[in-house]
């Protein structure tokens, strides 16, 4: 691996995918195509130990995610552990299933923050994307309970061609639900979203309009609602620094206990991931091959290596380079400096131009057909 010694700051955040079980079937789910079975999930003692190790390592934020994290019977115990170790707990939830019933106990256990996903601003659209009738109405009840308990709320809306006209309505809905923060997150094309890209990719003019709506709302709602915007990088000029740079800030733990530099990193062949059952988090952060594979700047090819933004973008996203170019070591083609950038923008444009997009392939077991790497290299 790397020979030069890189000084590694400690991580600040950890995303625990506590389970892949989820009542929803969103076609852009960030879980991998191969979902972990319940029988493989970390047991309670392991999760609690991981939280102790996270606190010792200087991690500040814990994102309790899934799947639907409240599907785990020990979610209250896990939340209480975050509180007792000083970790900031963020429940990333669908609000469906067991979430509503368990919320008061989570608030009592010291939950700091709730992030609720909405699939649409209205029930018909939302239920279609979630693949579950009645899900939107349940979410509205859940949001009311969040407000009743006085918990801090962020609404997360993943944007794609099916709901891009609802950005304004999402903003209104977030205000109505008493959220202090809204994420307008254009779909990032990994895992299920990559599989469904042709059904999800919005057209460029619609993307531009959605950005203008957010910018106007930020001004109008300053001091009332913070709106975070994630743009679709196929149309971007600069790539996103994936997870703030590989192995720089964040850790991601799969339900089975596999520790990844980002949620999609498993898609990269040849990386050696370590499990929390075998190693401490600190050991994994500093010593595991996967975390060191693309850490720092030594691994970078051109045009990254001589780029003045190399310690801003950190080469963009490895998983995207792999998915689109077949080689995780290349510059993320979302970057305008990549020789392949024009091709991925053309690819997005052509998919978005299809008048009748394909049906969604809903997330769920038995759908794990891995898509071929696309042939965009000449």
């Amino acid at each position: 691996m790397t020979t030069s010694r890189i000084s590694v700051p400690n991580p600040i955040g950890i995303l625990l995918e506590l389970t892949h079980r989820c009542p929803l079937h969103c076609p852009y789910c960030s879980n991998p195509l191969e979902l972990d079975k319940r029988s493989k999930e970390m047991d309670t003692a392991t999760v609690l130990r991981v939280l102790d190790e996270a606190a010792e390592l200087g991690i500040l934020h814990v994102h309790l995610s899934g799947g639907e994290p409240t599907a785990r019977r020990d979610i209250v115990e896990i939340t209480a552990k975050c509180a007792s170790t000083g970790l900031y707990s963020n429940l990333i939830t669908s609000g469906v299933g067991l979430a509503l019933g368990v919320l008061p106990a989570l608030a009592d256990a010291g939950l700091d923050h709730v992030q609720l996903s909405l699939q649409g601003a209205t029930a018909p659209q939302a239920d279609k994307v979630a693949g579950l009738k009645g899900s939107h109405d349940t979410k509205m009840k859940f949001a009311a309970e969040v407000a009743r308990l006085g918990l801090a709320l962020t609404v997360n809306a993943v944007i794609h061609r099916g709901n891009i006209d609802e950005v304004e309505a999402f903003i209104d809905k977030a205000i109505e639900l008493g959220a202090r923060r809204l994420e307008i997150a254009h779909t990032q094309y990994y895992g299920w979203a990559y599989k469904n890209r042709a059904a999800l990719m919005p057209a460029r003019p619609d993307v531009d309009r959605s950005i203008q709506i957010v910018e106007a709302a930020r001004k109008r709602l300053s001091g009332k609602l913070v709106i975070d915007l994630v743009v679709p990088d196929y149309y971007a000029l600069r790539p996103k620094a994936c997870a703030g740079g590989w192995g720089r800030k964040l850790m991601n733990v799969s339900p089975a206990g596999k520790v990844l530099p980002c949620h999609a990193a498993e898609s990269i062949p040849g990386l050696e991931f370590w499990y929390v059952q075998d190693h401490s988090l600190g050991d994994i952060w500093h010593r595991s091959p996967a975390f060191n594979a693309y850490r720092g700047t030594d691994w970078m090819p051109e045009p990254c290596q001589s780029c003045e933004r190399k310690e801003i973008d950190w080469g963009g996203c490895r998983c995207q380079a792999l998915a689109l170019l077949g080689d995780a070591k290349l510059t993320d083609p979302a970057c305008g400096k990549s020789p392949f950038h024009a091709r991925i923008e053309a690819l997005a444009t052509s998919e978005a131009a299809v008048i009748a997009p394909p049906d969604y392939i809903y997330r769920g077991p038995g759908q794990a057909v891995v898509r071929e790497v696309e042939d965009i290299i000449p």
Partner: protein
Amino acid sequence: MSELTSFSVPKLPRGVRLHFDKVRNAYVLLAPERAFNVDDRAVTVLKLVDGVHTIRAIAATLAAQFTADPAVIERDITAMLADLIGKRVVEA
């Protein structure tokens, strides 16, 4: 957002809390998806921000503690709190 006055009562909103980071030996303000470094001066003030005491009362406490002019302290902490309100980690 209304202007801060001597009689404004600042508080940390739900979902925001002051945390001592043992690893980095520093206080941080934790908020959803964000963490803000806070210097010693800000920590001294934030420990008195409880949703009960006015800015004037906080300034008086600090003035007694540091034998300083309460008017000067009040001006300083008002500016500091306005900055944190802009970052949505304090309400008043």
